[in-house]
């Protein structure tokens, strides 16, 4: 028995496929790719598989993870090729690594995630790179707390998400010659992620846009369909408490 961590990308039309359907998708993909996955016992055996952190519908990603258990395995290179041969357009497997015995599963390891968020229609972007940098500085440094109202099962809850924002900065639009483009900046965020105190980029940017409005910086409110959220990476904490991409907990299988 072997534990394997798989990393994949999700883009294009696949961003509309929700988390539960992605789980079903991968269950079928494992069979198509002939991965020797382990099954539970009983009348309706299911594959031993768990996902790291659900991605919201509408978001794309370069860093999705799932863990599986296998009876036997091919090399990382061969398994990746076998999986990619049976993927739908918009899902691409980028890693397939063996986890050392005793590694916690992806779901319980998750500690942080990196995101970019962009305006889908650049002309709706009220910022330039410098105005955004200044506004974000004011938002983070000018406030002792970033209070948001979170919907929970028990009702509404006020919480301070400032300590959960590990990084929040402007992101220059890609341009030639290594210069920074002033127009159409996006956001980069590194946020606390996991089963407790999970923070989504939408929550942070809603608070930021609301703050901008109150400060009279610009008249804007967060419209989910107008923004493209993209997850770059998901992290766990290593023995020293340092953030480490989930894939780095595993090792390449050479043969």
């Amino acid at each position, binding site marked *: 028995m072997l534990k394997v961590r798989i990393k994949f990308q999700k883009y294009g*039309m696949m961003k509309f496929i929700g988390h539960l359907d992605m789980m079903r998708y991968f269950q079928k*993909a494992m*069979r*198509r790719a002939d991965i020797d996955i382990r099954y539970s016992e009983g009348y309706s055996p299911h*594959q031993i598989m768990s996902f790291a952190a659900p991605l919201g519908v509408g978001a794309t990603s370069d860093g999705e993870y799932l863990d599986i258990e296998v009876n036997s395995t091919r090399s990382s290179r061969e398994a990746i090729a076998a999986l990619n041969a049976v993927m739908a357009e918009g899902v691409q497997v980028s890693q397939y690594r063996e986890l050392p015995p005793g590694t916690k599963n992806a779901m319980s390891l998750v500690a942080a995630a990196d995101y970019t968020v962009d305006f889908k229609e650049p002309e709706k972007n009220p910022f330039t790179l410098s105005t955004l940098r200044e506004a974000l500085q004011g938002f983070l440094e000018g406030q002792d707390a970033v209070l948001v109202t979170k919907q929970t099962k028990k009702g509404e809850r006020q919480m301070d998400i400032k300590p959960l924002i590990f990084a929040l900065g402007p992101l220059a639009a890609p341009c030639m010659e290594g210069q920074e483009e002033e127009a159409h900046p996006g956001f980069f965020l590194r946020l606390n992620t996991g089963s407790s105190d999970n923070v989504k980029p939408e929550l942070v940017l809603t608070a930021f846009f609301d703050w901008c409005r109150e400060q009279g910086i610009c008249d804007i409110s967060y419209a989910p369909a107008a923004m493209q959220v993209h997850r770059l990476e998901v992290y766990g904490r290593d023995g020293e408490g340092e953030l480490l991409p989930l894939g780095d907990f595993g090792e390449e299988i050479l043969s």
Partner: protein
Amino acid sequence: MREPALSDEILLNIEKPARYLGNEVNMVRKDPASVDIRFAMCFPDVYEIGMSHLGIQILYDMLNKREDTYCERVYSPWPDLHQIMKERQIPLFTLETQSPVRDMDFLGITIQYEMCYTNILQVLDLSRIPLQAKERTWEDPIVIGGGPCSYNPEPLAEFFDLFYIGEGETRYEDLLTLYKACRKADAAREEFLRKAAGIPGIYVPSLYEVSYHADGVIASFCPRFEDVPSRVEKEIVMDLGDTPYPTKPLVPFIKVTQDRVTLEIMRGCIRGCRFCQAGMLYRPTRERSLDQLKAWAHEMLKNTGHEEITLSSLSSSDYNRLKELVTFLIEEFRGKGVNISLPSLRIDAFSLDVMGQVQDVRKSSLTFAPEAGSQRLRDVINKGLTETDILEGAGAAFEGGWQKVKLYFMLGLPTENAEDISEIAHLAERIAERYYEIPKEERNGKCQITISTSFFVPKPFTPFQWAPMNRREEFKEKARQVKEDVKAQKNHKSLKYNWHEEDVTILEGVFARGDRRVAKALLRAYELGCMFDSWSEFFDNEKWLQAFADTGVSMDFYNHRERALDEILPWDFIDCGVSREFLEREWQRAREGTVTLNCRQKCSGCGAMRYQGGVCVEGKN
């Protein structure tokens, strides 16, 4: 990468956007510019229902095997998206290339049940194709209908350019070749249709004229031109080993009704139940070869990754090599996490044994479809299932650990009387009593007998096609009667009764045996907002009643008359393979309560022998 026809903003605000995106595993990709014919294949219901239909998958695979054709899919947009598309003037699009349906050469619509007729109008409307066939030009696709309801295409005649009568595998080659030739020669649309009428199995409604007597009955039904055939014979595949089968079926992202591999083991049915249209239409019974099915099972599970496999046919227990097939499936796949989902098999030692292997007996239920409560009425409908069969089967199952039984009946069958109805509850009671014969310490609590009744709708090409249907009040009263009878049984706490709504049945009756004149009411109903009528949350009987009132179409005329044998029926121009004489004979025998043996016991001379194959020649060569 393909761009969706709908904006992110729309897709993020409707239910299940995956219904409209395509991109599923095994979706066929072609460059539309590289083909001569673009074909949109439509199942006029929501994606999850349409994607579960085997016939569409067969045609999708078959048409896409042609290099000159690209077949794409279309389903009915759910009401949430329907409203947005209407408001924002977004034309209906195909899933594969997200292109407007109106840009296609063909729009094929499978017509599986009467209550999807308004959805057909919805698809045409959203595609911006004129609803009336006569208003279409070469700017519109050729709209072609197929499937079981096309055996009485008349209620839909004015909305379709063509109907394909029978099994789809045989004549698309001829039709598409003709289409290409006509387009190349710059022929008029009418010319293409006229020539298409010469292809066997193809019915072009605009080329026929219907006249009516003063009492509303059809006076004549004739081709308008000499070269148009007066009868259209159904198409049928006689060598099932020789037809394409979708061994790489599409794998949807969202959960659909049939989320599994389907093996079609057989077409047709030997039983001859007199209410059953499928049992008449698909004669003679033809089996697929065991070796082919075994190979397909492997291939299809591998190509889809599905975790379940099931068998499809009208009566799987009659497949000659069922034991071998089921044993193979269990031995081959059971250990690999694949569920074997068995269709309703006749309950005997074998089926109980295999079901015990593939199901949790305590959770699963056994199904019997006696269809009628009394032996007398079962003889009338030629349902060869006796009370002894049921009690012995249920008894064996109870001994084997099962506790749940489902019973299916129909109310309103021809000649039905009060005693036939009361026998429904009695039969259920006797099954429950059989359960309680098991000593208390050996059984596992109570049993659960679920009785379901539907209302009988006489269908074309069955021996009951002349029979009057019950009225709404009769249906209501009969269901109430069963409910009371059930309550009066000693073991009523172990019995549960479900019944269908009668309003939908009444409409089904009108469209099942309607003629061209009921189209007015259908169109009006769509204008009033009727859609998704097979979904109880959307079915609006008030609107339907208004539609019939507004158009002056009488439901009673279609539902409650007993038709005379010499009346011209709207579907009489179709030759479904079973002879008129046979149906008349069976109608007579039904009224006498005489049973007709099944095809393997004795040939009843239905007419299907002319195809020289299947069960008709079994054991003879």
